[in-house]
């Protein structure tokens, strides 16, 4: 049976498609291999180790301990509390700032964006210790406030939750501002003009038109800040005065304290699972692909 021209064509197309897929796979295989080696295998290993007890046998003791001791629950609560509060404060400070930046002429806006990014050029450790110097009892903030008569006695703004939040908000703010700013820049100004043309007050135009259009950026930024906060170590360790204990800090102390790696691994697994759960829930509301720069 002779093949018709269309059949040949179709077969050729299919072959081309096949080849292209293979080529694409070949091209991305180094990246895939890397993900496998540096992500999938270690995380799998982490899961495995978390089920190994002190005697080297399969055991649930690492998880049982987390239920038995209330401190683990409290540490997870603190971690989520700090992360939520940091995210909330970042939104309150960052959103208006991003809005302000998006209204500026682009040259000025770029200049301002550089100042937003400037802190990234300094190490996190240095910034954290700088806050310690500023906020401590005999630090600059208390000294100035007292000499200006704002308060009489040094107030406690570090070695506690307040100090931790100040430090973390400072470090996290750019992660919120950038996606929000991007989303705002992408909003067509004509929509706002159309809204006022149709009789909306500036306030109404903002809330009914501008704000909803900026929410993907806001969600993306908030999610990024929140997830990054969950794994924070240095800032709460330095500014929390040993009283704000987050999961990462407990992981470190468990590595030092317990003979088996599993004691620390189990904490990592629980944090990972909780974070994935949050991302999964969030993905039902936000387009995560758009957040990471992918298309809609």
């Amino acid at each position, binding site marked *: 049976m002779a093949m018709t021209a269309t059949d040949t064509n179709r077969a050729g197309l299919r072959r081309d498609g096949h080849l292209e897929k293979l080529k694409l796979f070949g091209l991305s295989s180094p990246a895939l291999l890397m993900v496998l080696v540096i992500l999938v295998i270690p995380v799998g290993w982490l899961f495995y180790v978390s089920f190994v007890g002190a005697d080297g046998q399969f055991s649930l003791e690492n998880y049982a301990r987390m239920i038995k*001791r*209330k*401190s683990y629950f409290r*540490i997870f609560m603190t971690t989520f509390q700090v992360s939520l509060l940091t995210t909330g404060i970042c939104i309150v400070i960052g959103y208006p700032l991003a809005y302000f930046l998006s209204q500026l002429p682009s040259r000025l806006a770029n200049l301002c964006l550089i100042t937003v990014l400037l802190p990234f050029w300094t190490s996190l450790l240095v910034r954290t210790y700088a806050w310690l110097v500023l906020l401590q*009892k*005999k630090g600059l903030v208390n000294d100035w406030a007292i000499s200006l008569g704002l308060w009489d006695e040094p107030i406690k703004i570090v070695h506690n939750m307040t100090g931790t939040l100040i430090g973390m908000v400072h470090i996290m703010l750019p992660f919120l501002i950038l996606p929000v700013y991007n989303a705002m820049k992408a909003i067509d100004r004509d929509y706002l003009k159309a809204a006022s043309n149709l009789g909306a007050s500036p306030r109404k135009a903002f809330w009914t038109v501008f704000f909803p259009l900026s929410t993907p950026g806001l969600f993306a930024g908030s999610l990024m800040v929140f997830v990054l906060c969950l794994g924070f170590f240095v800032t709460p360790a330095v500014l929390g005065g*040993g009283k704000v204990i987050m999961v990462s800090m407990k992981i470190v*102390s468990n590595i030092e304290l317990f003979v088996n790696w599993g004691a620390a691994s189990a904490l990592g697994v629980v944090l990972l699972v909780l974070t994935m759960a949050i991302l999964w829930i969030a993905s039902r509301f936000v387009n995560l692909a758009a957040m990471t720069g992918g298309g809609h």
Partner: protein
Amino acid sequence: MKRTLGLTLAASLLGTAVYAQEKTVTIASWGGSYQEAQSKALFDPAAANTGIIVKQETYGGMSDVRLQVSSGAVSLDIVASGSGSAARAGAEGLLEPLDYSIIDVSTFYPTLKSEFCVGGDVFSTVYAWNTATYGDAGPQNWADFFDTEKFPGKRAYRNKVAGALEPALMADGVAPEDVYTVLDSEEGIERAIDKIRELKPNIDVFWSSGAQHAQLMKDGEVDMTTGWNGRFDNAAKDGGKVKYSFNQALLDYDCFAIPKGAPNKDTAMEFLAEISKAEYQDDLPKYITYGPTNKAAYDTGEISAEVAAGLPSSPANAAMQLPVSLEWYAKWETIADEMYQEMLTE
């Protein structure tokens, strides 16, 4: 071509042979002013006298050793460690037993060495106070440290259980010699933790490192803290208004151990024998106020009576202190620290 290759091989083998005759050891310690003192007093002079080449590193403690031993890639020959963690690591099988026929400990304080670890220096966990707040005559004992009516002010305390429970029990009226008997049960541990719980509203900072508690005192951030004596001396030298007392302090020691499977185990043993000699140990107090573990170091004339009076292991100071019980830490530290974390997170 083949011949050249053969020659090259032979030459390189020869090279290795020559190299192997030069003995080397890799030592890991805690860095900072502590390791600097060790280098100047112990490592450098001992290297010069023995011809052993010393490579120094800093490390994160016995968890690093555990990683190296369990992965079969041991690179460290000697590690400096706290006595308690060394005892636990030894029990875990991470350390080589030390050969005391090579390392001469006949003039050591008998308690300052163990199967796996030979003492390097003696330090104390003390209470320190801000002299601007309380003057030179500050708290006299742990009961005063816990008494916020007599000594109002903010405290700092350790964020781990090591060295945290003994003071609380002494403050609660337990005689120093009975402390470890009382602590030998969960009820006893809870009693100590309850005492700290009581003080907690006045504890501003739970410190995590020696550098931190020294800085807290230097900055006047707290009025009283627990901590390691050498750090407070350095803070005072830098102008910090801080004093401390050896009364009821916890007498503890740092030691040197050899990780299981160390590449230069024999050289390491030889080197430990060298740095344990009085002639090196007597130099250590020049750089940090930690005392020798070798009693003979007091007899060489290097340590003046004045310096000796300020060292944790001088006979007069040692008599006032409670020696830390390694047995207790080996048995209870993990459980006690978990209980301590409960209090911290409340």
